[in-house]
């Protein structure tokens, strides 16, 4: 008997709203990873123009010298910083570091792995990503 598995699907996977900041971080990590990959591919394509001489390079650079281009680059900076900072936290966590110690749980149960340290790291990752974006904006638009 083959039953419909009633999976929550992509919508459920991608919905960051219901289970606290850890789920938000999961969601951001995915989005930024994909975003960075997209940028990375674009970036390599962009730099390859250098082979076609200065004119080609300059016209390629011009694409990013627009306001939209600047906003896009700012986003990339934010994504990169968040992804990196959170990635470092995750590498520790995935290795079992900084996620608390097993203990007998007492009601009301507060999962130790969802501890303050991790939450703070997530907020901090978002925070420095925001700072980096502001710095980026100032550099890009400040010229």
């Amino acid at each position, binding site marked *: 008997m083959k039953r419909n598995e009633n999976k929550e699907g*992509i919508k459920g*996977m991608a919905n960051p709203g219901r289970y606290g900041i850890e789920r938000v971080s999961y969601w951001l990590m*995915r989005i930024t*990873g*994909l975003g*960075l*990959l997209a940028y*990375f*591919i674009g970036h*390599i*394509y962009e*730099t*390859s123009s*250098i*082979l*076609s*001489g*200065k004119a080609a*390079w*300059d016209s390629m*650079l011009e694409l990013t010298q627009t306001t939209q281009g600047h906003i896009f680059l700012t986003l990339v900076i934010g994504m*990169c910083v968040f992804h*990196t900072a959170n*990635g*470092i936290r995750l*590498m520790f966590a*995935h290795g079992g570091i900084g996620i608390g110690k097993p203990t007998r749980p007492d009601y009301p149960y507060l999962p130790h792995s969802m501890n303050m340290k991790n939450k703070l790291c997530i907020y901090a990752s978002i925070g420095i990503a925001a700072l980096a974006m502001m710095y980026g904006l100032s*550099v*890009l638009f400040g*010229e």
Partner: protein
Amino acid sequence: MRESIIMKIHYGTALGAVVLVAVHILYRITMMSFGDSLEYENVVANYKFIPYAIMLELILVLLSVHGFNGLRVILLELKQGKSYEKAVNYGCLASMAILIAYGSRTILMTSMGMT
């Protein structure tokens, strides 16, 4: 390959990239103003500085491996099935190879002054 080895590579490439990307970006913003650093001549000069070119090549490899493996993971989780998973695995591997080849071409040719 065992999944654990793939994922160790994933983490390893990420760690390597942290350092190198930091150098790469710092290079862009500390040497001179960001705008100037992107001037054609300056960029070409960078490429001709061999240690920098090697570093770029490394970043290229590390991030391609990391990024496409990340994509592979996401795609594997989205849908299941033997042929689909095979397609995802090889597809990502191929894209990775193409990207590395394409990027290497730029680096190699520029650093050898073939612009």
